[in-house]
């Protein structure tokens, strides 16, 4: 038998794609992805319409989606994150049906339960063999982990592997196995390596970012959690990476051996692994070339599925064993609710990703954000969109002070005793308003353009149209 198919058009035919179906994509090729656009071009050429797209995330590289929406080829979107260009179009009402936002853990849970049924999964694979065994670790478009694609491969009715690096059977070090794959298609290039992973991710040089990173590392040091077995996750933002670097110095100084680092893996976490700060890295996604190289070569750097990472319906998930997570915010309110879905004007420019999953799971979830950003306070009375509920957020770190959730009195006392600048969140808000003034509230908004689902499947918020 042969699973090899010559073209995307042909595989669309063979897999039986029809009007009204759902197709899925992963986002490991990030802003360098060519596959989603290529598949949709083929879909459009074949005259198929009313397609629902379930992608683990959508980036600015996927901006051609806007035309497909306008032409009726795409009528539904489900994702965990959406870049600002597409987000703005959605916020302005280009898509009639509200976008469905789920968290990185909520997505595999919904796919598994059948709530988010996938008819055909298109899995971009940096290396594959003719039977569909595939991996992200090798090939010119290597992206490392394929963590977000596993649920799609396991539960879609049909699975299509799309590769630009076909190797002879068997690809022994596969991530997704041939047992789940129906078809294999080759493309000249599945992505632009420059957009897939950064050459090197760098820590911030911004002095305000470094102050916040220093506070974050000191909070961890004095949290009571920094001891052998410690586990940690951080994003790839400049201040988060700087915090990881400071934390590494503290862990080496105090001779703490952690159990694992989770992520979103960057070279900084790889350095921590190699320096003996952790026993293992659990990797749902690689952010840079150092991470790709490490997951390929180091058996202690493990690829994990999105469900294993964060699914709320898994028997257990890694986030539930996490001690500390450092997260960002576009807005946070005085009840510690966090928005990473929209900007301060209400336009979509992000999404939960693993934000709400890790905040819920970790013993200490910390938000790092400069108190004032582009003339506006990051601290507001009520966030425009609740991505992560305040009850799962423990600490807000700004350059002008650290606010601890009142439910964490013991932690607040620890940080105060350590000499950290702990302040009441309302005082911090007054301080910010003293600098920026109080902005006029946003005017009445239009129809719902996105439903935001919390990881347990409940709808936690809705995002409304910003202009007609």
């Amino acid at each position, binding site marked *: 038998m042969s699973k090899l198919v010559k073209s995307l058009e042909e595989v669309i035919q063979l897999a039986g794609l029809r009007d009204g179906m759902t197709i899925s994509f992963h986002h490991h090729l990030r802003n360098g992805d060519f596959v989603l656009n290529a598949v949709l071009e083929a879909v459009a050429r074949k005259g198929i319409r009313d397609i629902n797209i379930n992608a683990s995330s959508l980036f600015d590289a996927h901006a051609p989606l806007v035309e497909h929406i306008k032409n009726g080829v795409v009528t539904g979107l489900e994702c965990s994150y959406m870049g600002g260009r597409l987000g703005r179009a959605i916020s302005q009402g280009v898509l009639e049906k509200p976008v469905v936002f789920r968290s990185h853990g909520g997505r595999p849970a919904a796919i598994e339960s059948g709530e988010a049924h996938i008819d055909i999964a298109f899995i971009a694979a940096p290396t594959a063999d003719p039977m569909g065994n595939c991996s992200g670790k090798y090939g010119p478009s290597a992206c490392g982990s394929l963590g977000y694609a596993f649920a799609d491969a396991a539960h879609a009715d049909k699975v299509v592997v799309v590769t630009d690096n076909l190797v002879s059977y068997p690809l022994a070090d596969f991530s997704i196995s041939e047992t789940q794959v129906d078809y294999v298609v080759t493309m000249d290039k599945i992505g632009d390596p420059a957009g897939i992973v950064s050459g090197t991710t760098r820590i911030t040089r911004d002095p305000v970012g470094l102050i916040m990173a220093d506070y974050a590392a000191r909070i961890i040091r004095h949290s009571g959690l920094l001891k052998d077995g410690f586990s940690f996750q951080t994003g790839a933002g400049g201040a988060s990476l700087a915090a990881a670097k400071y934390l590494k110095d503290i862990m080496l100084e105090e001779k703490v051996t952690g159990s694992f680092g989770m992520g979103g893996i960057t070279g900084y976490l790889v350095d921590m692994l190699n320096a003996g700060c952790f026993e293992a890295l659990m990797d749902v996604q690689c952010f840079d070339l150092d991470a790709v190289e490490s997951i390929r070569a180091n058996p202690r750097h493990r690829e994990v599925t999105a469900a294993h990472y964060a699914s709320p319906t898994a028997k257990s998930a890694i986030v539930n064993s996490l001690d500390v997570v450092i997260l960002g915010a576009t807005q946070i309110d005085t009840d510690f609710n966090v928005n990473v879905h929209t900007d301060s004007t209400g336009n979509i420019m992000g999404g939960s990703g693993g934000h709400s999953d890790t905040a819920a799971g970790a013993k200490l979830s910390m938000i790092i954000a400069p108190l004032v950003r582009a003339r506006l306070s990051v601290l507001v009375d009520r966030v425009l969109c609740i991505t992560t509920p305040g009850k799962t957020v423990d600490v807000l770190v700004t*350059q002008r002070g650290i606010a601890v959730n009142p439910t964490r009195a013991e932690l607040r006392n620890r940080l105060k005793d350590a000499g950290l600048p702990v302040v009441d969140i309302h005082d911090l808000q007054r301080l910010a308003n003293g600098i920026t003034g109080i902005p006029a509230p946003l005017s009445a908004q239009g129809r719902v353009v996105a439903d935001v689902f919390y990881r347990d499947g409940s709808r936690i918020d809705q995002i409304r149209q910003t202009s007609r």
Partner: protein
Amino acid sequence: MRRSLLFLPGNNPNMLANGDILGADAVILDLEDAVSPDEKDAARILVRNTLRYLDYSRVEVVIRINPVDENEFWKRDLDEVIPLKPSLIMPTKVRDAAYVQAVSAYMDEVEERHGIPRGTVRLVPLIETAIGLENAYAIATADSRVTSLFLGAEDLTADLRCARTKEGSEIFSARSRMVSAARAAGIDVYDTPFTDVNDDEGLTRDARLAKSLGFSGKAAISPRHVGGINWVFSPTRQEIDYAYEVLAAIEEAKAQGKGAISLYGKMIDAPIVARARQVLDMEKAMQGGGVK
């Protein structure tokens, strides 16, 4: 206490908005070299409004003004900032005592115009020319507003026609001379910044050298250098503990009516007591957040 003095460009709103939390004991809001001639007025207004509307109480404020020349930018600088009562004005390209006195006289005028007691705002003259260096002691004693001297090595080495190096052997004698002039006048003296922002080891080495020569503190052109400078110029735990022991020992000697006393077999004399008091003053200032 001014261990670290951080230069912030007077035309950079982002830096000014966070200037008070970058860890420096003092910030030098710069209206001179960091600001091009066509932006002088905008920077002046920005610095004035920063001091008027933001809370800079956690840090001491120094304003670097333009040199005394025919442009008279320096007068407009003083017109804008003196009403906000910064701690110090840093006049630039200071040549001699008369130069300092001219600046001080105009400050008298501005203070009077705004009902501010005469002499409220003090001076830290920037010495950055060969002639200024030759007149360092005269400058240090030129006016009662002068609290300290500041060495600017970039312009100085250009004037001396020598290359500026990381090791700084070309400014060794200038450094020593500045310290000597300032100490003879009974005032503080601050060292020129280390200009390679990516060289943390070099910064530490340079700060240690400045401290060993007698400087009171050191300037920084990047927030990244502030921590290193503070560290070098802070007393160590052992120095603080020893200072407490010295003061306890002389108290005890006094109580027992003894004249001369020793600690760990070493005679405690007046310079040792004076040094102990300086260390403890510094410890107190550090606890208070930096501003003396």
